[in-house]
């Protein structure tokens, strides 16, 4: 794939975790193939996908591991999240259980994952707003407290799905300096950015707003 001159090429391992039936595979299929099925076959072990995303700063090639959601498959998870640069932890807004499960994934990743891991908490199935059991504030607050990105999506309607991967790509591009020193400084900036991001509550904003606010955050970070 051709890349723009001067931009970085990043290959990033991304893992999706979350309770069964929260829509992990559907999110990936929507992103990778633009498809959605009402009844998506349950994933056993894990499924692998790749997708390339070009943003201004870099071309990111995602190696995506979409894992099985059932609790007992938990014991396989380290194999998939080991060495991941980004993790998407998914819950279904119509299931409080799935939100609790998501929190456990976050805790596990925080303890065992890479400290530079880009982690996103995804509240999926917002097309089922009428059956919502987990309020936006709960998800947002938890994400805020744990320094995660928070985004509400619908794989069915495609709402915020591209934005989700776009955000991750941007963070990866930012977090990968050309040389390893300086990584720390960048990370600190990034952490602040995330908090600002969460506090600003733009998780529900449209794509152009997200971009705009992001430019602001970057400018702010540059001043710090």
């Amino acid at each position: 794939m051709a890349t723009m001159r001067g931009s970085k090429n990043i290959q990033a391992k991304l893992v999706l975790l979350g309770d069964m039936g929260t829509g992990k595979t559907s999110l990936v299929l929507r992103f990778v193939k633009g498809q959605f099925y009402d009844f998506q076959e349950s994933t056993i072990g894990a499924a692998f996908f790749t997708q390339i995303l070009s943003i201004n700063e870099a071309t990111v090639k995602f190696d995506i591991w979409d894992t099985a959601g059932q609790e007992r498959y938990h014991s396989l998870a380290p194999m998939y999240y080991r060495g991941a640069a980004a993790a998407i932890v998914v819950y279904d807004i119509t299931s409080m259980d799935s939100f609790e499960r998501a929190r456990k994934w976050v805790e596990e990743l925080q303890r065992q994952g890479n400290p530079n891991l880009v982690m996103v908490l995804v509240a999926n199935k917002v097309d089922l707003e009428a059956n919502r059991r987990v309020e936006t504030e709960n998800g947002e607050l938890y994400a805020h407290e744990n320094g995660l990105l928070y985004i509400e999506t619908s794989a069915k309607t495609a709402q915020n799905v591209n934005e989700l991967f776009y955000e991750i790509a941007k963070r990866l591009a930012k977090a990968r300096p050309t040389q390893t020193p300086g990584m720390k400084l960048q990370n600190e900036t990034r952490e602040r950015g995330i908090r600002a991001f969460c506090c600003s509550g733009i998780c529900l904003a449209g794509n152009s707003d997200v971009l705009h606010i992001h430019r602001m955050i970057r400018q702010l970070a540059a001043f710090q």
Partner: protein
Amino acid sequence: MFGTQARGEVSHEFQPPLMQYWRPSIYTRRANITVKFQDLYGFTVEGNVDDVNVLNEVREKVRQQGRVWWALEANKGANWYLQPQISSLSEGIGVAALKLSALANSITLKKLVRKGIPPVLRPKVWFSVSGAAKKRSTVPETYYNDLIKAVEGKVTPATKQIDHDLPRTFPGHPWFDTEEGCAALRRVLVGYSFRDCHVGYCQGLNYVAALLLLVLKTEEDAFWMLAVLLENVLVNDCYTDNLSGCHVEQRVFKDLLAKKCPRIAAHLEALEFDVSLVATEWFLCLFSKSLPSETTMRVWDVLFYEGAKVLFHVALAIFKMNEEELLMTSQIGDVINILQRSTHHLYDPDDLLTVAFDKIGSMTSTTITKQRKKQEPAVMAELDQRLRRLNSLKMDDKPDSPRE
């Protein structure tokens, strides 16, 4: 109920006329064109004209193989393969002759099974050679019906998960999309979840049970096949709690790959590619999600007769068949793509099984059992360590009840 009335709708009696898809000359000229059709078991297959041709050849081979079985039935009697296994015969006068004929039969049967059981005979042969018939004979005849009645309307974490997965099990399959098909699959899975509460329901079993239903055609037989599979054929604890049996199998498989395909194993290790990334699904779904349906059935033919070591043969064969291509890879994604493409297009079961049994070399069940014993402590230690780490996480959290 999924009984005799349903017979016309499932299994080999789906006989979509394959020929019509490739007979028109337009298709023979345009070999790259993709065609969609239903295979022997009602699954929609997307393939090119070559695939269709292969499938037609396979059908012809199945017919020929059927003739071999009928000839044997004519010669040895209808149920010749149901004769007692050699090991179950007791010593005594007059037994020697019987023993010899049983031995001859078991050699014939082994060869025949590897060449494929005709779809029409599958229900009977599987039920017998797997030990399902024996298992059922140890309980009252009403066992299954009583079980299903007793658990009707009960809600457990397992039944909730089953209900969640039912519409996601082979969606688009003409029989599982019907209420009848879905209900039959539900009864088998729910029934089993109560029979063995340690297994309960494990994702993956939905696919296995679904294929068993398609072949066996009666849900009670499918239930017993599932039971014998989990309780006798496969290694223990493949589907329980933390899938420890599956972890053991994966480690054994890694060792076998290093031994049988050292170049591939070394190359993949250099890529930091853990073979269980792909093989876990193969072992838990018994290839039902990876191989075309008739190829899966052929693997199961041998699995039920020869035991769980067959899964290693087949998994090794898949790697072996793609050796040259795999050695050229430089990225994990390419490895996965090669394996996925290859498995999805294995329309000729003989291509796979010839490699699995003639080119991999023999592996006795005793050797495999030893290898499993060797790996067990490491797996247990790893799972235990992991559990402790997770528990230490929970210390900061409010106590939670297990969800499964």
